[in-house]
């Protein structure tokens, strides 16, 4: 069994991208931390041949549901998508339009899009994680992408055109 450090190095960035896309910039690091702490605890019992990406995304999915529920219970601060500077000040920092567009998707579509396009999981695996059929997962991802293309891409292209 590989040292867990190797799992963090190999899959940490992918899980962070997934968490950012699924729960947004404010909750992403908490979700990542809870995911990897839970994964570390369970790691010695993981089957040698297990698909590590799918295992991590399964844990992240449960943590994301917890985070979304906890956020829903909290009183909403004025404006759920606050305007604020990106935390690292770098151009590739993504807080803003993309998250606004992702947040507007139904949760199942957001999850299907993230798990397929950012984690690289096949739809059958995504269906096992989110519930429902493989076809439903495929449709959710396709619908999500279509909406994002119409909302986010259209808006950023418009912005570039100005």
């Amino acid at each position, binding site marked *: 069994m590989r*040292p867990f450090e190797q799992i963090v190095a190999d899959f940490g960035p992918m899980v962070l991208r997934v968490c950012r896309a699924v729960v947004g910039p404010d909750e992403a690091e908490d979700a990542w931390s809870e995911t990897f*702490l839970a994964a570390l605890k369970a790691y010695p019992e993981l089957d040698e041949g297990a698909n590590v990406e799918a295992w991590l995304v399964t844990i992240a999915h449960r943590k994301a549901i917890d985070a979304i529920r906890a956020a829903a219970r909290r009183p909403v601060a004025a404006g759920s998508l606050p305007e604020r500077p990106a935390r690292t000040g770098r151009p590739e920092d993504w807080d803003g339009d993309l998250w606004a567009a992702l947040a507007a998707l139904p949760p199942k579509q957001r999850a299907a899009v993230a798990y397929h396009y*950012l984690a690289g999981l096949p739809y059958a695996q995504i269906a096992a994680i989110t519930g429902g059929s493989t076809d439903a997962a495929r449709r959710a991802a396709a619908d999500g*992408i279509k909406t994002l293309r119409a909302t986010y891409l259209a808006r950023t292209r418009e912005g570039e055109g100005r």
Partner: protein
Amino acid sequence: MMATMEPEAMDLFGALPAQDEQANARLHARLAAAAAADGVLDVAYRTVNTPVGTLLLAATEQGLVRVAYPGQGHDAALAQLAELVSPRILRAPGRLDGAARQLDEYFSGRRRVFDLPLDLRLAKGFRRAVLAHLLQIPYGATESYAQVAAAAGHPRATRAAGTACATNPVPIVVPCHRVVRSDGSPGGYAGGPGAKRSLLTLEAA
């Protein structure tokens, strides 16, 4: 690892960084701290630069469990720890701060005795008895393999004493470099003959 993305999906997620080094470092440190607090950081490790090369230091909650020379392969040492101790292994320098500091003092000639909790679980039976004896050999002194074998309770097990030294999981701190051939030549060493000569020269100064 990543499925091939359709061009429009690449377009869509281009704003979401694939690698965010600052966030990765921050999250790694947070994970190591949370794991230690929850008692699930079974093995913590770090590397230190020394005059005999970059050493891997690893510790369980009980103490220092492994010191590995570059020639022994740090990855191989971590793989062995994953196999024999636990795969719950993270790079987490905090637990090794004391060991790193004492090694630094040792190499600068300011320390003659290590005062560190040790976890010698990687050595069993006679090998463990040999390590226990090695800890009694004072700084600057040397013994022959035959003397060590006798002190560990098996006077005729000179060769086994040599194997116990060669497989010492915690070299330098458990001073197998103080065991030399009966003709006075240094003999083999896990860190290579050059490292053994360096340590003996340091301690003779």
